[in-house]
Structure formats: structure tokens, C-alpha cells
């Protein structure tokens, strides 16, 4: 079986349509809104907001696609690296953790399919963005675990916590409980990333620094222009408590909050034509 499977070769049937992150980022309508002065920040997920239900359906479909890619990424990490201490190798126990994560992600895929049905969404109704799997293609397992487990699964903590609150506010017990269960798993996935980062870079500060810089880039990119931030009015709020449980220090969470605020400011600056 091939090692390091490129994103183009992921198996998808014809229900699915892939979009490129850069196309969304460079959508010319943002510039047009800037010229007209009509740019508005995204709405918070709340039953009172007019587009909340459609926003929740879209986000839930995105979660489903993310779960598939998380399964594919963790599975590849089990396979792509030989057992060993090198930077292009992985300890057996790390691969075992990734195998356990595959089991969780498979369950999350099934839960997400059911939640999409519950919300009236067809699989493939929304496009697929493959950014999670792309972060899982790094040839260094430490980079993979910081990019995917700490940054993107960290984002998943924020998103699941948001969806759980949305379910709670709407009185939707199915959404609330499903998100809570998945959230509990995500906390362990992020903690795996935190633990392995510290363990594998214990005697190699330069490698740790590179990994943390990679995580910072991923965190900033996937703060989604301020969609995720530490502010109450943000559609996806940074879940500080769950991140602490996942092994983030207060300083690390503050740093993600800063990075998210930077991303939001850059989006607003672009929209304002600055």
C-alpha cells in the first residue's frame, strides 16, 4: 500500500464536491462588499438569528467531512511511519494511539451521518474542504500531531462546544448529547497531540519550536477569518475549559486567542480596504 497518500487520491464517490480553501478566501464578493461598505461579520449561532438553522446545517456537514478526514489522517499516521526514534519515524505507542483515534473517528462519522439526517441534510449537499487531511500529510509525525491533533482537533473542540450550546439553547437533546459525547473524545485526541509533542521533542527544542510554529500557522489559518475567537459574539467561541482539559496551558490558550484575533482583524482590514 502506498505511503503518504496525496489529498487528490482520497476516495470519494460522486456525491461529494471538493472546494479549495483559497477560493473561499479570495472570493471577489468580499472585495465588492468592501467597496460598498456592506461587509458584515458572521452571525453567532443562536436560535434567534435568522440564518442560524442553515448555518448549523452547513457547519454540521463540515464536521462530518472533517470526521472522515480525521479518520483518514489518523489511519495514514498508523501506516506511513516505520517504528523508530527518527523524525520520519514514530513510536509504536503513538501508532497505537492513532489506531484508537481511528476507532473514535469512525464512530464520529456514524454519529455525524445521523445528525445530518436529523437536520435534513443530504451527504454531499455542501462542499468538502480538505484542509484537515492536508495538515495530516506532513512527513514529520510531530508536525502532524501538532497540526491535526492540537490545532484542528482543538478547533473541533471549539466547534463541538458551540454546537452543543446551540443544541442546548434550541432545546435539541439529540444535538446536545451527540456533540457532548464527541467533544469528550476530541479532548482526548488533543491531549494525545499535546502529550506526544512534549514527549517526542523533550530533547529537541528546535523540533518543538518548528512544531509549535506549524501549529500557530494552522491555528491562524483555521480561525477562519475570526469565525472562531475568544469573544462572546463570535460564531465559534474558544472553549477554554475543554482546552485546559486537553493539555493546553493558559499561555497556549491565550496565544490561540491572540492568533484568532489577528485573523479576525486581518479579515476586517481586508474588508475595510486597509
Amino acid at each position: 500500500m502506498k505511503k503518504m497518500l496525496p489529498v487528490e487520491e482520497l476516495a470519494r464517490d460522486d456525491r461529494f464536491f471538493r472546494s479549495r480553501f483559497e477560493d473561499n478566501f479570495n472570493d471577489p464578493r468580499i472585495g465588492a462588499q468592501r467597496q460598498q461598505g456592506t461587509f458584515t461579520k458572521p452571525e453567532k449561532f443562536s436560535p434567534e438569528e435568522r440564518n442560524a438553522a442553515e448555518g448549523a446545517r452547513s457547519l454540521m456537514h463540515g464536521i462530518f467531512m472533517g470526521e472522515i478526514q480525521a479518520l483518514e489522517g489518523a489511519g495514514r499516521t498508523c501506516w506511513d511511519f516505520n517504528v523508530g526514534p527518527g523524525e520520519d519515524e514514530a513510536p509504536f505507542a503513538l501508532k497505537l494511539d492513532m489506531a484508537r483515534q481511528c476507532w473514535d473517528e469512525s464512530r464520529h462519522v456514524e454519529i455525524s451521518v445521523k445528525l445530518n439526517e436529523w437536520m435534513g441534510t443530504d451527504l454531499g449537499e455542501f462542499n468538502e474542504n480538505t484542509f484537515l487531511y492536508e495538515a495530516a500529510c506532513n512527513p514529520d509525525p510531530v508536525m502532524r500531531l501538532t497540526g491535526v491533533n492540537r490545532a484542528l482537533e482543538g478547533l473541533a473542540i471549539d466547534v463541538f462546544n458551540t454546537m452543543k450550546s446551540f443544541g442546548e439553547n434550541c432545546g435539541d437533546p439529540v444535538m446536545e448529547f451527540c456533540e457532548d459525547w464527541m467533544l469528550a473524545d476530541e479532548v482526548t485526541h488533543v491531549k494525545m497531540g499535546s502529550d506526544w509533542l512534549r514527549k517526542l521533542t523533550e530533547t529537541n527544542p528546535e523540533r518543538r519550536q518548528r512544531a509549535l510554529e506549524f501549529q500557530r500557522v494552522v491555528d491562524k489559518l483555521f480561525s477562519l477569518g475570526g469565525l472562531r475567537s475568544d469573544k462572546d459574539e463570535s460564531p465559534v467561541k474558544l472553549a477554554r475549559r475543554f482546552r485546559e482539559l486537553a493539555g493546553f496551558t493558559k499561555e497556549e490558550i491565550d496565544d490561540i486567542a491572540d492568533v484568532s484575533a489577528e485573523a479576525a482583524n486581518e479579515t476586517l482590514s481586508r474588508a475595510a480596504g486597509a
Partner: protein
Amino acid sequence: MITVTPETFELVQFDAAEIAALAADVAKAVGLADDVTIAIAIDETAIIGKASSRVEDDGRIVLDVTGGAFESLRKARTFDENRAKAVLGQALMRARDRIDPDFGNPPADDALSVPEETAWATSIEGRLDRLGILVGRPQRRIYHFRVRHGFNDTVDRIFDRLWTTDSITWAEIAASSSEAVLA
């Protein structure tokens, strides 16, 4: 007569003639008279899907639609005929209800509360489904209805009533929404 503005689009891949033809089909299907004038204004810069309709004093129906409302959920900035049909169906049926003296006197679109708007949309989608204009999506619609009104059996029964009733008034829709909120 149906007009679509702008006549050409620069930021999205839409065709004004195609939209006008689709609107003509939907207008006929919802029962609007052949001689009614419909003006569709599309803001192609707006990404979030939104549409409103109003009936002017001279009987003209005006639709304000964002480009995002007609856009494919899978491929950004491209036209999605089924979504457009659903949006036009909602907006034109709302206008038809407003014209119908037996329907009553609902608030303007931008003055509707979110639960009221959702209840009216439920009634309309049920009617569009039976007219064959839309492929029925009751699960999506009931999710919207539950998000605004609550997740319980009473709310679901009110949803069914709104979905299945062909002849309905604004007072009945507003009362159903209030009843569901309190359920």
C-alpha cells in the same frame, strides 16, 4: 412581465434570462396572474442567502434577493436551479398570500419575527410540495421549525398542521407559531 436586475452579473455565474424564465414558471405554478409585474433585484455581492418580497401599491411584486440565495451550496458563485426555485417559490407564494384578501394582513417581510417567518415558510413549503414545484424536504423544514419553536411532540403536530393545510390565513399561521413557542 418579469425583470431581473442586474441584466449581467460580474461576481457570480448567473444568467438573468434563465432566472426570469424560472420565475415565470414558478409564478404561474403558485397561481399569480399572467399580467402581474414582477421585479427581481439581485445583490450579487451578498453571500448569505436571503430573500424578501413585497407588493407595491400598483400591484407590482418586488423581490430583493441576495446572490447567496441562488448559489450552489457545493460550488461557490454558481447558479443552483433547485435552490433558486425554492427561494422564488417562497417569495412569490408569500406575495400571492399578501394579494389574497382572505389571507389577512401579515407584517412586512422585514418586520416578521423569526418564528413567524419560519411558520409561514413551513406552510408555503408544504403547498409548494403538493404543487410539485419543489421536491419535498420536510426533514430540513421541520428542523428549521423545531429550532425556532422547540423540540417536542406538540411542536411537531403544529408543524404537520401547517405543512398539510392548503387554505390558511395569516391569523392561523401566527397563532400556530405562538402556540408552538409556548408548547
